[in-house]
């Protein structure tokens, strides 16, 4: 087993986020994830403080670390200056580096995020791009988005955007040189390697689950991870 605690400790966010927890629960008290998921940020610190790699391994393979919404409300309140939200980020990073994320339903979703947000960052230079936000995948966006999506160029023109245009402005086409630069940044800093790992471990998992996985967003595995919900995430009481 890799030296998990020490690997986590290499992450500055981990060092910044874990001082010494006194188990007061101010984090869990106001954590939106704790309100709706079987989740307590306090427990995360409890486990990490043990430095016990077998417990940490379980955590890295669990749904637990994927419930947090990274709103960082916990950071404001902690009387000891811990930052549970930052610890979650370091745990998620390590879970992906080691491929443990594919062991949980919520962790497996990383592939879907990589293939949407990740792809768009490199392709458009934006985290989102309107033509990609399909009303069918986002029905809650309502009739207004359906209308807007259908008329995107005209609506963007009406609202003064420079949609796919050159020069500055809203939703301009980001110059190819700039896109090349951000690709190189991703290459140099480990971003591309993170993406490759998400792909590689997911492919392995899809095979193990006997599911078809291609490169886009329409294969069985992608559809499965995008929508699968066991319903076991919100339970309040044991038994």
């Amino acid at each position: 087993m890799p030296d998990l605690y020490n690997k986590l400790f290499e992450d500055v966010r981990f060092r910044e986020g874990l001082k010494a927890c006194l188990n007061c629960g101010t984090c869990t008290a106001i954590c939106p994830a704790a309100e709706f998921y079987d989740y307590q940020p306090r427990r995360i610190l409890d486990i990490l403080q043990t430095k016990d790699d077998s417990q940490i391994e379980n955590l890295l393979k669990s749904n637990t670390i994927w419930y947090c919404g990274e709103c960082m409300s916990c950071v404001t309140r902690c009387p000891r200056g811990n930052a549970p939200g930052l610890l979650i980020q370091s745990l998620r990073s390590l879970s992906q580096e080691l491929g443990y994320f594919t062991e949980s339903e919520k962790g497996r979703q990383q592939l879907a995020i990589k293939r949407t947000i990740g792809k768009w960052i490199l392709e458009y230079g934006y985290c989102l791009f309107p033509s990609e936000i399909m009303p069918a995948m986002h029905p809650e966006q309502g009739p207004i988005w359906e209308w807007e999506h259908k008329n995107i160029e005209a609506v963007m023109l009406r609202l003064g955007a420079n949609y796919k245009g050159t020069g500055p402005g809203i939703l301009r086409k980001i110059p190819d040189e700039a896109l090349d630069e951000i690709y190189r940044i991703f290459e140099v800093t480990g971003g591309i390697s993170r993406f490759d790992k998400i792909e590689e471990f997911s492919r392995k998992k899809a095979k193990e689950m006997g599911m078809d996985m291609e490169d886009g967003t329409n294969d069985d595995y992608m559809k499965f991870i995008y929508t699968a919900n066991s319903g076991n995430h919100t339970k309040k009481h044991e038994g």
Partner: protein
Amino acid sequence: MKVEGKQRIWMDYQKEIAEDHFFYVRSCVRQNFFPGSEKTFLRILKSELQKDIYENPSHTTCSGIGYHTDIVPFETAMTMVARQFALMTEAGYENFTTSCITSFGLYSEVLETWHHFPETEEKTREFLLRATGREFKKPNNVSHASDIIFRFRKEIRDKGKYKLVNQHTGQPLRVVEHIGCHYSKMFPSKGIGGAEYPYVLIGMIEDWGGEVIDYPERRHCCGFGFRQYLIQANRGFSISCSKKKFDSMEPYKPDMILTNCPGCPMFLDRWQYAISEMEGKTYGENGHGIPVLTYEELAGLVLGYNPWDLGLQVHQVPVEPLLDKIGIPYDPEMKFKGADGQDLGKPESPSFLKFYFENV
């Protein structure tokens, strides 16, 4: 509730906001969902306040949503941020301002990290140089675009045509404010008014004539939670968070919700629609919902800009009841027209949320 108590706290969290010469970076979510807001922000700064604000066409996403969905490593995000700083340095600017709260939080986090762990700054400089050949200076002043509108709120009021007053009753409009989590929850001193009672939107509402409502779930996240919305299987979390806020604010009968984060207004707007479709429940008066505005949209209304230039037509919750209350004229026929009056058809009407109605 004693407002003096809050005022004392606001005094403790004063923040320096540059006066002029801004290097501007955009927001991914805002450009997608509220393009009119960014347009309005620049219009106010340039034509109303005569400020110098520069946008480099080469700037990109800060990768914040990727960072907070954890597909983008911290080192990558730091270098993406460094590249934006390099563009600023090259253009000769020192005051960095961003349209996005996630970005604002990330810029703050990166600068703090560099401060506490100087080796990370060194490494980032090396990465950036290797990847792009660029070098950078750190900004002198980092602000969120709402900080700037806050700073010039009185000038906006003085130039304004409208006040946040209900013209039928003469009473101030009752406004709920919602602050993006990453504005000050991580670093209270970086937000006007701190983390517990942020003042950035309250200052605008008060100076423009409205009344601020404080309600129990004011500090609650809207529920975006990055991966919690982006993946369909998790959206139950996202909508449940917003619903909690609506249920908590409902008894106070707010006339509108004002936001400073790009994502929050979209979710608070769309989830009202989704809740109505899923449960038949609508908030606000007469089944119209509670209009959700960005601070730029509200500033634009105060200044008398055409609501359809501000982009208020791309809200799912109709804004007309609010316009009527303030007494702002609008042409219903033009709401869904393109530039030069081009016919674009109309969105369908939701099942429960009242979207089309007679002009009062």
